[in-house]
């Protein structure tokens, strides 16, 4: 099958949905790029990671809107346009910038439907680049999804590969609730098999990436591929695992995790966020509350440390869980 990068897969989803639904608009900093300036060249950026490239020439300035660096206005405008009947896809250049516009995310978008008695919806998608691994420092590298997963009213998507990213993006834009869509910047270039045309992946359905017998590994985003590497190495020792990619953190398919644990009895959770009040600790708490009987050993959480994301290559490598650290933790747990 045709191989596409995750970047191009998401780009294709945006093209498809903008062509299908005239209510879809895209807005954000440099989503086209080149407005003003001295060269006269539009579509000069197509998003800082190139995900929105080619949309402006096709759909025009009323639907592909370059904004000033004003995150609160970007997300707020997406909210207002959604209330007024559009389906905006807003780009928040880096997930760290949630800190600038959090009011529009958690006080406004998340709460309209409830506060207004169910009489309206806010169908926005906030696309945002997430994660460490590119030495971008503490304010451009965080994995902030626990913050939004904690907020009732929001849906949270973290794709781990190109195929899922396209299908989940099409679902996200068509979904009537506000969705925060985290795109790991380190896997934008990674290619995978992506069919042409329209397909969707439902929210709240985890992917069982691998089946095995000794341990259940739940990994999020980029950590899915790291867990696969770890499991490849462990196969030689006869250790196999169910590898679960939740794909959406809200709603979360916890049932698939419990079902797997009935067979394996051991759980490893891999997440590159810091450990406190994290998605990893949330999943651990859910399992302890709902599937304690299935556990043969304590739950293992492999996370970043309780520190900001560091800059230097050596430090950042030490910060992010590695295939080796995942491999060692699984081996320890299984041989316990």
């Amino acid at each position, binding site marked *: 099958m045709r191989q596409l990068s995750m970047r191009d897969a998401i780009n294709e989803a945006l093209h498809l949905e903008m062509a299908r639904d005239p209510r879809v608009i895209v807005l954000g900093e440099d989503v086209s790029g080149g407005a003003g300036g001295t060269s006269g060249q539009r579509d000069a950026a197509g998003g800082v990671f190139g995900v929105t490239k080619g949309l402006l020439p096709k759909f025009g300035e009323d639907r592909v809107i370059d904004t000033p660096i004003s995150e609160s*206005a970007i997300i707020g405008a997406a909210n207002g346009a959604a209330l007024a009947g559009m389906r905006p896809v807003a780009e928040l250049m880096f997930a760290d910038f949630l800190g600038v516009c959090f009011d529009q995310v958690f*006080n406004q978008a998340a709460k309209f439907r409830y506060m*207004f008695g169910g009489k309206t919806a806010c169908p926005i998608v906030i696309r945002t680049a997430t994660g460490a691994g590119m030495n971008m420092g503490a304010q451009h590298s965080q994995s902030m999804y626990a913050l939004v997963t904690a907020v009732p009213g929001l849906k949270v998507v973290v794709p781990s590969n190109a195929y899922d990213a396209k299908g989940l993006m099409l679902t996200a834009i068509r979904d009537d609730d506000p969705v925060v869509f985290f795109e790991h910047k380190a896997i934008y270039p990674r290619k995978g098999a992506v069919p042409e045309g329209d397909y969707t992946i439902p929210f709240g359905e985890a992917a069982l990436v691998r089946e095995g017998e000794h341990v259940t590994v739940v990994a999020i985003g980029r950590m899915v591929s790291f867990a696969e590497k770890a499991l490849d190495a462990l196969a030689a020792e006869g250790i196999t695992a169910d590898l679960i990619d939740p794909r959406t953190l809200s709603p979360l398919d916890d049932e698939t995790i419990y079902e797997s644990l009935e067979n394996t009895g051991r759980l490893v959770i891999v997440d590159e966020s810091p450990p406190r009040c994290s998605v990893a600790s949330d999943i651990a708490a859910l399992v302890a509350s709902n599937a304690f009987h299935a556990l043969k050993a304590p739950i293992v959480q492999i996370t970043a440390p309780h520190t900001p994301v560091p800059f230097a290559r050596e430090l950042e490598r030490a910060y992010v869980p590695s295939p080796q650290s995942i491999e060692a933790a699984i081996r320890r747990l299984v041989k316990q």
Partner: protein
Amino acid sequence: MPLPPDRLLRAYRQMKTIREFEERLHVEIQTGEIPGFTHLYSGQEAVAVGICEHLDDADWIASTHRGHGHCIAKGCDVTGMMLEIYGRRDGLCKGKGGSMHIADMSKGMLGANAIVGGGPPIAVGAAIACKARRDGKVAVAFGGDGSCNQGTVFEAMNLAVVLKAPAIFVFEDNGYSEHTGADYAVGSRDIAGRARGFGMPAETCDGSDFFAVHAAMGRALERARNGGGPSTIEAKTTRFFGHFEGDPMLYRAKDEVARHRETMDCLRIFRARVSERSLLDSAALDAVDAEVMALIDRSVAAARSAAPPTAADLLTDVYVSY
């Protein structure tokens, strides 16, 4: 162009409805039946009505924590609002929003907003939708003198200028940001001047004069509808009550409200003006007064006897689907 008598009477009815709604709430709040925070709009009616008289249901407004006046002026159901403020199941938002979160998309009312500065970015978004659809509609962002100090408002104003969005920013300078004077908190005390700094036309008007607000809005609206982009209207006004109900107003001179009720009462000023010019006769205005009083009586009675939400309502309306 002078307004025809039926429009003038409608404007008066709207202002009177807001006034009596708020004056009655001020009384009913003493009974303890109304939960939470309530911020009353009495004194500022000419602004909401002077602006919204130009709009229809397909135009949009984003309101503030002091939002009852905007809601009524934009056509929200008065009884539904009263029920909502009492926290009743049949309230406009099923009792889940309350005074600070009344909204009705079918009336183009994007919501009162308990976050100062929360509304203007949302209004610009609605204006972007109007522009993309080329439907000739506009969006109005209401805010107070307090909101003009929020960065989100500056972002919204600049974005509207950059995109030539059909947005109109209305700042109601009632003299106080909560318990602090605007003469202290607004650096230049010149909100219109700030707006001009963003590159949009701005004018200051007497917010207790319906006709002044209405005329300023007419100019802003014409610009917005003709692709001229956003405008700002700064309306100088006053509030007759505290920041919230129960506020002892220690920051205001003892006689200030009484003085303002004498000299800045927009209803009184409106009646004087239409009588002077023989535009409406006082019998017609008195008849409106009686109808409004009856409407408010009915809405309070309905709210008092209405059922509260049920326990099951707690868990509904979080998502469209989950």
